[in-house]
């Protein structure tokens, strides 16, 4: 368990550093990507391209593996049904993303770079998560994907 936590720590460090390097911790740049009718900034597309390449390879490798290299089993999402919570949740998420230019990764990462606005956003985000838990306490919790 300690070893797994240390691996997660290392992954988080690389993930957070990558977000900072990518420029996506700057909300104005994310808004620029979403602002297709205005001052469009395609930088986010380069970030996605860069991230999708190694991750696509990882899924191919995973298909040949019995189990992960440092854990007992793969715990990946298995749901395939398109349901209302998925779509409504994503639509609402997009509204918040468009209002602020922030999503969970960059927001948490910004706790180190721009602590004040990041702390406000992360508090509100945690409240939104708590509200979801209150309203849907027995929701069949689909794994994160």
């Amino acid at each position, binding site marked *: *368990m300690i070893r797994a*936590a240390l*691996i*997660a720590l290392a992954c988080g460090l*690389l*993930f*957070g*550093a*990558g977000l*900072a*390097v*990518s*420029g996506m*911790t700057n909300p*104005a*740049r994310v*808004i620029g990507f*979403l602002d*297709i*009718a205005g001052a469009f900034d395609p930088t986010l*597309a380069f*970030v996605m391209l*860069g*991230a999708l*390449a*190694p991750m696509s390879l*990882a*899924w191919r490798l995973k298909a040949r593996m019995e189990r992960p290299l440092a854990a007992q089993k*793969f*715990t*990946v*999402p298995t749901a*395939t049904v398109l349901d209302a919570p*998925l779509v409504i949740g*994503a639509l*609402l*998420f*997009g509204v*918040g*993303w*468009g*209002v*602020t230019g*922030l999503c969970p990764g960059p927001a948490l*990462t*910004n*706790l*180190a*770079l721009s602590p004040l606005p990041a702390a406000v*956003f992360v508090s*509100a985000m945690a409240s*939104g*998560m*708590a*509200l979801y*838990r209150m309203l849907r306490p027995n929701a069949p*919790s689909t*794994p*994160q*994907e």
Partner: protein
Amino acid sequence: MGPSLSSFAHGLAGGVMIGCAAAAMLLLLGRIAGVSGLAAQAFGLSDRGSQLLAAAFIFALPAGAALAKLAGAAPVEASFPSLPYLVVGGLFVGFGARLGSGCTSGHGVCGVSRLSKRSLVATAAFMATGMLTVAAMRAAGAGW
């Protein structure tokens, strides 16, 4: 500040780092690097997963950014929305990510690279409302 060759290069390099981190989570720990799910676990707002593991990942995000900044590898300029926008946006992002089972990392990076139908739909949906929201705010003159 605007788009430039430098911003594209930074985006691509940072993206590769993000993708490698997500790949390591999958191949080493067998888990998805979905930040909203891990954050909920770290905050004690989810029943699944290991809280210690999630907390380690979430704590490391700002730590990694601080290291990148120290190394001079991260662009420093950033502008943020004002308080009311942060509060409303944060609520929508937190609630929506949980209801929709993921965010830009879980669906956008991990799910899309897997060609998961659910993640492709979710990513299209949040990109659509994200763009519509920005356009609506522009039309209403509701800048930050």
